[in-house]
């Protein structure tokens, strides 16, 4: 932690040098001075992006104690849903309190010297020069681009006012920082396009918007100093410059945070927040168990996909995971470590426990408070790992034939869905999949019987017969749709919208490339991040007509009418 903080400080010091050289630009000309710009997207940052930004810019010891606005999942991802969200007044109030708390901590006596980089002539009075330097430096890091001159001036003015009223330079500076943290330019990612000099009449994302896309895709955070420099210099518009940055970022240790953020979104781990279970049915369920489960899943994924640079498909079959004491109790395996320690653990070859589907996260999130749910689990396997969402159920379902469920296993009950024509279409896709996970209860504990009847975990999916969770894991491992789905979701996550028809050829090529790369995720990041499609400009629908003669750059020329929202 300490090391990371020091590194950030070093980055900031050099960022100051770089950014203070960048002259302020007049408001309304934010892209680059004297070139017209078009705002092409405004995307609210997620909770984890906010947290990473604050930790990266102000240090990991800044505590954030507030409730974030909830995200919304669309196309399977919060990254897409959040692109369509704004800030409600209740949320604004929360961020407002949080901004003050961050400013108080970042500029307290302990941190201020390392952070501010200049000293006021009189610590009891306003100092416009030092304030300007501070606002330019941190404003650029927070806004992901240099500030307009008027943006700087507004903050310098309130800092001055505050310093006078409070008789303290730093109290004034806190107000300026507060105001930066509340600005829409920080709370939203504002993507802008500019005329493309290589393709007259077309637009391209400006360098800073490209830098943000890359940084949020790979690191789930703001562009760092080096990336902002590459944006300012135009390097990101060259293939070699772009690839150099991609190589640097994917080899950075910070990629772990990016991979964790992506999989937290993909696997819907936000559903662990506030997850509750019936206490009498599941006495082992606790907040510590939930927190441990999240950590297990993310640690294992980072270990497999980043540290070992392994094959993505192995996450479905890998028997090695990380456990701590609360998880050992749920998995019913011995644990010799201390209460805070983690250990690598490999389930025996004859165990049904293999891969991400058999972890407590998946098994407990997609279940009921007091029982498992083969339907939910099946639906989520299809949705998350195969990009096959299930349509909404029909409203007028006739369950009158349903038998009492206090006896036998859930398989009996679900058979009704399969014979009922209104339900069969979807349940035939979900239930056989979910039923293979039935040897795990609503929090993921192993079991072999339900109501005294042995649980049957055999399945027949389109003529392919398999057995249990390990059979399902192997099936997914061997299904080419699974890695293709991952590639699609990484792309969607990065661009913040669902892929559209024009993306199909590109996605097919990426899926093939992913296979050629041995299904390595870092290579996938590089492949997607270096493609023109990743930076494609989609001109949003305007209230007023767009200027004539403007075409859209990139592979297709689709306006937002073609964007599926």
């Amino acid at each position, binding site marked *: 932690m300490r090391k990371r903080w020091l590194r950030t400080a070093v980055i900031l010091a050099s960022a100051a040098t770089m950014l203070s050289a960048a002259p302020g630009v007049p408001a309304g000309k934010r892209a680059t001075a004297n070139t017209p710009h078009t705002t092409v997207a405004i995307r609210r940052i997620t909770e984890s992006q906010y947290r990473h930004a604050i930790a990266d810019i102000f240090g990991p010891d800044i505590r954030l104690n507030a409730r974030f606005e*909830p995200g919304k999942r669309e196309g399977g991802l919060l990254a897409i849903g959040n692109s*369509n969200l704004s800030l409600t007044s209740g949320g604004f109030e929360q961020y407002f309190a949080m901004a003050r708390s961050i400013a108080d901590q970042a500029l307290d006596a302990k941190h201020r010297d390392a952070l501010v980089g200049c000293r006021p002539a009189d610590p009891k009075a306003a100092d416009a020069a030092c304030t300007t330097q501070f606002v330019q430096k941190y404003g650029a890091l927070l806004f992901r681009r240099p500030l307009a001159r008027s943006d700087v001036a507004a903050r310098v003015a*309130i800092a001055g006012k505050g310093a006078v009223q409070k008789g303290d330079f730093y109290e004034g500076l806190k*107000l300026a920082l507060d105001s930066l943290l509340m600005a829409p330019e920080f709370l939203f990612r504002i993507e802008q396009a500019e005329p493309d000099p290589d393709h007259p009449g077309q637009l391209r994302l400006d360098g800073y918007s490209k830098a943000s896309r890359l940084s949020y895709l790979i690191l789930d955070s703001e562009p760092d100093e080096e990336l902002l420099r590459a944006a300012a210099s135009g390097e990101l518009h060259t293939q070699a410059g772009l690839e150099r940055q991609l190589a640097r970022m994917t080899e950075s240790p910070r990629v772990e945070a990016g991979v964790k953020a992506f999989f937290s979104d993909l696997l819907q781990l936000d559903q662990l927040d*506030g997850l509750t279970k019936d206490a009498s049915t599941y006495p082992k369920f606790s907040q510590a168990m939930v927190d441990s489960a999240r950590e297990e899943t993310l640690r294992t994924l980072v270990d497999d996909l980043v540290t070992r640079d392994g094959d993505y498909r192995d996450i479905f079959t890998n028997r090695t995971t990380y456990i701590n004491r609360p998880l050992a109790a749920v998995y019913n395996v011995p644990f010799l470590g201390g209460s805070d320690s983690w250990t690598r653990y490999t389930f025996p070859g004859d165990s049904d426990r293999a891969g991400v589907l058999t972890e407590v996260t998946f098994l407990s999130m997609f279940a009921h408070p*007091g029982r498992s749910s083969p339907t939910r689990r099946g639906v989520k396997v299809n949705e998350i790992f195969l990009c096959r969402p299930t349509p909404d159920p029909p*409203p007028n379902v006739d369950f009158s034939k349903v038998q009492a469920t206090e006896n036998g296993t859930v398989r009996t009950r679900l058979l009704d869905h399969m014979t009922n024509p209104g339900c069969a279409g979807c349940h035939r896709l979900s239930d056989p999949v979910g039923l293979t996970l039935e040897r795990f209860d609503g929090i993921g504990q192993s079991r072999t019987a339900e109501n005294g009847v042995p649980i049957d975990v055999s399945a027949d999916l389109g003529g392919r017969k398999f057995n249990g969770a390990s059979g399902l894991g192997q099936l997914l491992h061997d299904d080419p749709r699974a890695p293709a789905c991952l590639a699609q979701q990484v792309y969607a996550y990065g661009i913040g919208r669902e892929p559209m028809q024009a993306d199909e050829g590109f996605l097919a090529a990426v899926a093939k490339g992913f296979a050629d790369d041995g299904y390595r995720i870092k290579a996938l990041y590089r492949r997607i991040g270096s493609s023109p499609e990743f930076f494609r400009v989609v001109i949003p629908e305007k209230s007023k007509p767009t200027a004539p003669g403007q075409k859209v750059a990139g592979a297709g020329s689709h306006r937002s009418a073609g964007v599926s929202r």
Partner: protein
Amino acid sequence: MNPRFDRRSLMRGLIGGAAVCVGIPALDIFLDNHGKAYANGVKLPTRFGTYFWGLGLTNTAEGNLWVPTKTGPDFDIMPQLAPLAPVKSKISVFSGFRVIGDGRPNLVHWSGHASILAGAAPQNANNFEGPSFDTVVADAIGTGTRFKALDISPSGKTTSYSTRTGNSFATPETTPLALYMRLFGEGFQDPNSPNWKPDPDIILRQSVLSAITEQRKALMADVGRADQIKLDQYFTSLRETENSLAIQLQKPEKREACMIPPKPYAGKPGISIDLVNANNRQMARLMAMALACNQTKVFNVVHTSGPSETYIAGDDKTYHQRTHDEPTDAKLGYQPMSSKLAGMVMVGLGDFLTELDAVKEGDGTLLDHSVVMAFSDTGYAKIHSLENIPMIIAGGASGRHKAGQHVASKGEAVTRVSLTAQQLAGAPVGEFGSGAMKTSNPISEVMA
């Protein structure tokens, strides 16, 4: 329990260490001759709230547990409405109203309340066709308070159906403690405190926001329509925060019914019905004081969400699951366990209204000066019916509501009830809804 207690101990809200919330009549000396307003000239405001519960109530061809058999003022309380019996004279029950979909799909556990709140059946789940009407009411009457509206979700789920855009929904408080801290933590100013003085730091907090507002024009230039809506909402939220700060700079009007309640204990997380109802009751008490202390005039409650996950503790099936799985009892004509749960869910509404009614204010109670519109997502949940969705308007609306009636409709649009609630609350709204659910015809029987 300490047998000695007086007004002061009640004001502190503590008797023998146990939390209580007992309404005390405002002393007559505070009131003017008509009893409608306080002697200092402050008129008692009308408050407005929505109260949602998931999974409807039981009404089938063979079995009816909620629709009163009689209409008009002498209606009868059926079993599932029994928790409302203590406030029967202060509620109107509406039956037989439905969602008219105009060819839109029945999005289960969504189309019902989306229509009631936004006036049209939505095309897609997760979105409404426009703003929910509580925001319109809040804009009309929610002025002069620290919060324009407060949202709570006693089941602990981050669920609210209040939206200004049809897309971003409000973030509710999910625990009594969080609600307490929001209301009575930092920024709270006791309206009855004798030593009020403005906090000069508030002016500095205002300047933080004004620096952002100055940049608005540059930001709004050349954005797409969807992005413009997002920025508009952002700046609306900013303005509401500015208003809230401005209010904190003014000396608050005295509120005799305001008693700062004791800090609630954290409570047990969980969504079994006993826990949800316990949280709901605690939050109702806090919300009553939020209203009495003039912290807000508008609130939204989601007792349990549309596909309600609540359950009877120890039972391995959720309410929602039961409405799907449970066989219909041939003799009764409905699903017995699901119907039992529906009755337990209604205890939450009974508790909520009772808590508002327990706070004396002016010549009546807080409930008399409120309009609470309660409704569900569906009629009979087993079939996800959009017909006969139970709707109730509670509270006297400061004399505007001719309460204590049952109004039975033969399939008119739910939006008529929504429009009625808006007008009772004092919002200047003459028309509500769109397409086949567009109406300018409130239910005049219940309007004085």
